[in-house]
């Protein structure tokens, strides 16, 4: 009955240009009406469901398994262990060759004989329904021999700590040092040195749709189709082909609607390989949909870091050197295929990134432990690097009695100093820190806010203002994964096609996870071909249909995928003009395209519309001149090769009130000034930034995977793991500075992660600013009432 109330989705941009306008997502209505197609909505004939029996111990040997009763349970199809699956699916190792010296151990689709974290699967139970499989699991008797677990990353490398993988000789996964050479001299000669340690709680991304896989293997032609809730379908097709020994051409991965991803769904999980291998083994479709409880112990975690930081300055407040020591714990295996060292690596690359300091030293230790694997989650290292940088800059401001905004103003890289390098060696195309700081100052009315703060403080109300300047790595080239040997596409392709009805179909390798990617592709295609938005259809998420691409990660969708769409659309426009010229017997140079019609450039008179051109091209080519062939399908590719990454920048501010009696933090307001280059859709962009800020606030105030000393997760449910919720969120105001990248004609940089990068630092600095009258600081996220009360000596 939905059609009875059919308010048209009014896209503000009925007329071009569409780029730069607040276009509403055409797919929003379908999704909000419950008409999306997620993996769990797909039902196939003879489909079976798999449930994994998971280790209740952080580290344990499987002594024996008794499945006798389970085999007799109704609906049970098969019970398969790791050794049997290893005959179908090869083990994998999550290393990248450009992370020099990194090691990890082979990981199997299902663990064989030993589980290395609480939640690792040791047995697959396949049944007619998920409920029947769960009934069967309850009858299985596993005898476990618990082994000593490595829980605390601080002692993971200590001699008395057991080594998780004997063949590696230690629990060290990766070590990196970066040193510009003059750090010790800079600190020795500095007027001011500040030092502080920052701790980051391990947390995870919580998606509305859990990880889901439906593997369909056709033994007659040995073709595999996988319905997947994933960000990188081509990567998964390649990996399934390799691990299962199938030709890649015979593997198809389909990602229809994806209910949130945030990096959680960019990895290749053991569960994915196990489900696909079971489908091959059993010769029937097998579905796995993670439930919320197992998601907490199998979805990747992130951000468990301890960073010791030092900053040297002159008495005028000029930064001389940053020196950091980062320790991070990643679970028992480096995640496949993107590894678990990228987060730490980014902390090294990005700390101190906005500033002019000449000297920099960083040390990174990435260690194994018996907890859930960690890997890339929205922001990847940026929230850590930004909090360390901005935390210690604020500490310096307090010590020196310099206004924190002013201290930043004195040290950010000047807007006219690009292109240039940062102290860590990162190459920066063009940033706008000075413009962004100026804009923020006006936006928040900084002097008035400071005055309000001072007046309220007299009344015993403690408010704080926190500022966080950030840089964010986006639009990566092959530097991220390709050069390290991972077969993850660094380029993107788009195919545009004009149909006989004058509609343009556009297939892109980058998919949609709810952020609106398809909408901005449609805007770009509409403007560049020259037709209404309603006449554009976007196709994503099917390796059999879309050009080979990398998918969604590292804030590359708009910048890389969008440019491919632009280039393909631009060529299609040229081809349409050539067709019109042939049909009208005019010079193409005299013609123009707008709103799905070809016009006389001089008089603006409409000469022919796309539908008529389509009719002629497809059905009456006999009417066209001999020797002319219309080409109404165009594919173009784009890879960003000028820089390893195109950096963006921004600045955020948080305004909080700390109840010093209860330790509760009330978020009053949050602001972001963001420069992601050319803005394609301000509506979607602002919502991306708001959502990302909320996720950052989650890490700063709420989210933490709490483990006990034996490596067991203590809060793995939605009741106990605190995701940020609307009631506690502040209003978030967003403004933009636009510095388009010159690496593409579109000029767009990435925007999906910067919010998460800056929010924790801004909130931390705001809390510490509020606590300043008491001369105490908190530096261990999340900032719980308990931690704040302890800092205030109330308990």
């Amino acid at each position, binding site marked *: 009955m939905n059609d009875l109330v059919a308010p048209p989705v009014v896209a503000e941009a009925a007329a071009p240009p569409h780029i730069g306008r607040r276009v509403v997502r055409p797919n929003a209505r379908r999704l909000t009406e419950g008409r999306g197609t997620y993996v769990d909505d797909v039902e196939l004939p003879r489909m079976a469901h798999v449930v994994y029996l998971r280790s209740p111990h952080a580290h344990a040997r499987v002594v024996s398994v008794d499945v006798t009763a389970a085999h007799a349970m109704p609906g049970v199809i098969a019970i398969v262990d790791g050794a049997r699956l290893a005959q179908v699916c090869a083990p994998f190792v999550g290393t990248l060759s450009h992370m020099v010296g990194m090691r990890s151990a082979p990981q199997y689709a299902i663990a064989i004989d030993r589980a290395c974290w609480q939640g690792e699967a040791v047995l697959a139970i396949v049944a007619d329904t998920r409920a029947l499989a769960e009934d069967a699991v309850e009858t299985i008797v596993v005898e476990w021999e618990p082994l000593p677990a490595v829980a605390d990353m601080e002692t993971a490398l200590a001699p008395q700590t057991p080594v998780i993988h004997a063949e590696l000789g230690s629990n060290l996964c990766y070590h990196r040092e970066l040193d510009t050479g003059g750090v010790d001299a800079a600190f020795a000669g500095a007027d001011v040195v500040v030092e502080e340690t920052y701790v980051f709680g391990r947390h995870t991304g919580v998606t509305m749709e859990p990880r889901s896989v439906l593997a369909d293997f056709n033994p007659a032609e040995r073709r595999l189709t996988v319905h997947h809730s994933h960000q990188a379908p081509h990567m998964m097709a390649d990996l399934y082909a390799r691990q299962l020994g199938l030709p890649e051409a015979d593997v198809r991965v389909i990602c229809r609607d994806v209910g949130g991803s945030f990096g959680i769904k960019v990895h290749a999980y053991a569960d994915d390989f196990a489900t696909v291998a079971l489908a091959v083994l059993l010769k029937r479709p097998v579905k796995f949909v993670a439930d919320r409880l197992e998601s907490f112990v199998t979805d990747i975690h992130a951000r468990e870091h301890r960073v010791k930081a030092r900053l040297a300055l002159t008495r005028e407040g000029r930064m001389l050197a940053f020196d950091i020591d980062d320790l991070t714990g990643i679970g028992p295996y480096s995640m496949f295929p993107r590894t678990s060292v990228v987060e730490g690596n980014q902390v090294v690359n990005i700390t101190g990134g906005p500033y002019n300091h000449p000297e920099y030293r960083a040390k990174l230790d990435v260690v194994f432990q018996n907890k859930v694997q960690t890997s890339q989650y929205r922001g990847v290292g940026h929230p850590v690097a930004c909090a360390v940088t901005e935390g210690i800059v604020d500490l310096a401001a307090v010590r020196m009695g310099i206004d924190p905004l002013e201290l930043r103003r004195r040290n950010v890289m000047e807007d006219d100093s690009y292109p240039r390098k940062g102290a860590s060696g990162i190459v920066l195309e063009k940033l706008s820190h000075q413009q962004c700081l100026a804009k923020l100052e006006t936006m928040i009315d900084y002097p008035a806010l400071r005055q309000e703060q001072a007046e309220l403080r007299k009344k015993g109300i403690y408010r704080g203002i926190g500022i966080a300047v950030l840089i964010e790595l986006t639009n990566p080239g092959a530097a991220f994964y390709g050069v390290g040997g991972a077969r993850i596409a660094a380029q993107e392709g788009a195919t545009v096609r004009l149909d006989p009805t004058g509609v343009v179909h556009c297939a892109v390798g980058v998919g949609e996870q709810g952020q609106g990617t398809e909408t901005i592709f449609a805007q770009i295609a509409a403007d560049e071909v020259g037709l209404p938005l309603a006449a554009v259809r976007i196709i994503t998420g099917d390796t059999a249909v879309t050009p080979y691409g990398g998918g969604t990660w590292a804030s590359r969708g708009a910048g890389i995928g969008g440019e491919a769409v632009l280039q393909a659309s631009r060529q299609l426009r040229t081809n349409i003009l050539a067709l019109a010229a042939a049909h009208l017997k005019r010079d193409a140079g005299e013609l123009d395209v707008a709103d799905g019609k070809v016009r006389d450039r001089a008089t603006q008179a409409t000469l022919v519309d796309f539908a008529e051109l389509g009719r002629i091209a497809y059905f009456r080519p006999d009417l066209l001149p001999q020797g002319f062939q219309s080409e109404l399908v165009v594919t173009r590719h784009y890879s960003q090769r000028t820089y390893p990454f195109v950096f963006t920048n921004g600045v955020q501010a948080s305004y909080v009130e700390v109840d010093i009696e209860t*330790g509760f933090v009330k978020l009053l307001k949050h602001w972001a000034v963001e420069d992601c280059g050319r803005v394609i859709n301000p509506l979607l962009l602002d919502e991306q930034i708001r959502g990302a800020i909320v996720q950052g606030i989650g890490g700063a105030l709420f989210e933490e995977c*709490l483990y006990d000393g034996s490596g067991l997760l203590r809060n793995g449910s939605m009741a106990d793991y605190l995701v940020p919720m609307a009631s506690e969120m502040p209003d978030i105001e967003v403004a933009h500075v636009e510095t388009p990248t010159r690496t593409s004609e579109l000029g767009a940089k990435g925007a999906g992660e910067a919010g998460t990068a800056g929010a924790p630092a801004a909130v931390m600095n705001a809390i510490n600013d509020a606590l300043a009258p008491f001369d105490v600081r908190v530096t261990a996220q999340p900032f719980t*009432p*308990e931690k704040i009360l302890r800092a205030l000596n109330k*308990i």
Partner: protein
Amino acid sequence: MKAPRFAYTRVTTVADAVSLLRQHGDDARLLAGGQTLLATLNMRLSEPVVLVDITGIEALHGVAVQDGFLRIGALTRHVDIERSELVAQRLPLLTQAVPFLAHAAIRNRGTFGGSVAFADPAAEWPACALAADGELILSNGTNERRVMAGDFFIDLYQTDLHPDELIIAVEFPLPGRQRRFAFTELARRHGDYAIVGIAVAGDISGGVMGDLRIVFLGVGNTPMRALGAETALNGKRGDPAVLAAAIASLSEDIAPSDDLYTSAAAKSHLAGVLLQRAVKSLLHEGETP
């Protein structure tokens, strides 16, 4: 996860419900709003053989004033209390507490009786029942008995409800003109179970407190009545020294334990803060020294 297989029966009388409880013993569970039960089923923490849906028992529904009491039927949903003018006028403590109670979706289904019967020590209704001196009416289908809220909550999730009984209603004495109420709680996220909460009822006359009933939630195995604090405050005005004495006496009144995020020490401290705030909110402008 998926719930294990169970049978479902819908009854329309207390006698039928009780008969099923007697027949199946521990294997039967009463289903009212289902806001706790259904989650435990899906997590396989509880595997009853039969669910007895009691939502069709008319006698358990409704809010009414009769014989000097406000009667809240056990099947009254949280949202019904939230929207009840009668409750707002006659027992505003419940109206003050209900916004803290979970989220709208839960308030739309969860029931007053279900919450009282489950007796989560961090839940709002058990504490309010105790603070407002409620009396529970319990029935085994043939006999009714009455138990004061103060005697009903025995230990963690343990109540005086017999295995073959249902809560029919809770009756609250209608407060006199001088009686005032306060409710507040601290939760990390609005709608979560409270870290600490407080429900207070008291007669205020010329700024002097009397006949106080101070009940904490989240700081013991049951809702905890703070008798020491009541003694410290009864007959007094809310001046700082009196409040300090009341706060000091809390160490005898409450017995918090550590939870995932908050230590017992922090909860004790927060209980003192809430006591002070609740007393201040009980007193009007000019009544505070």
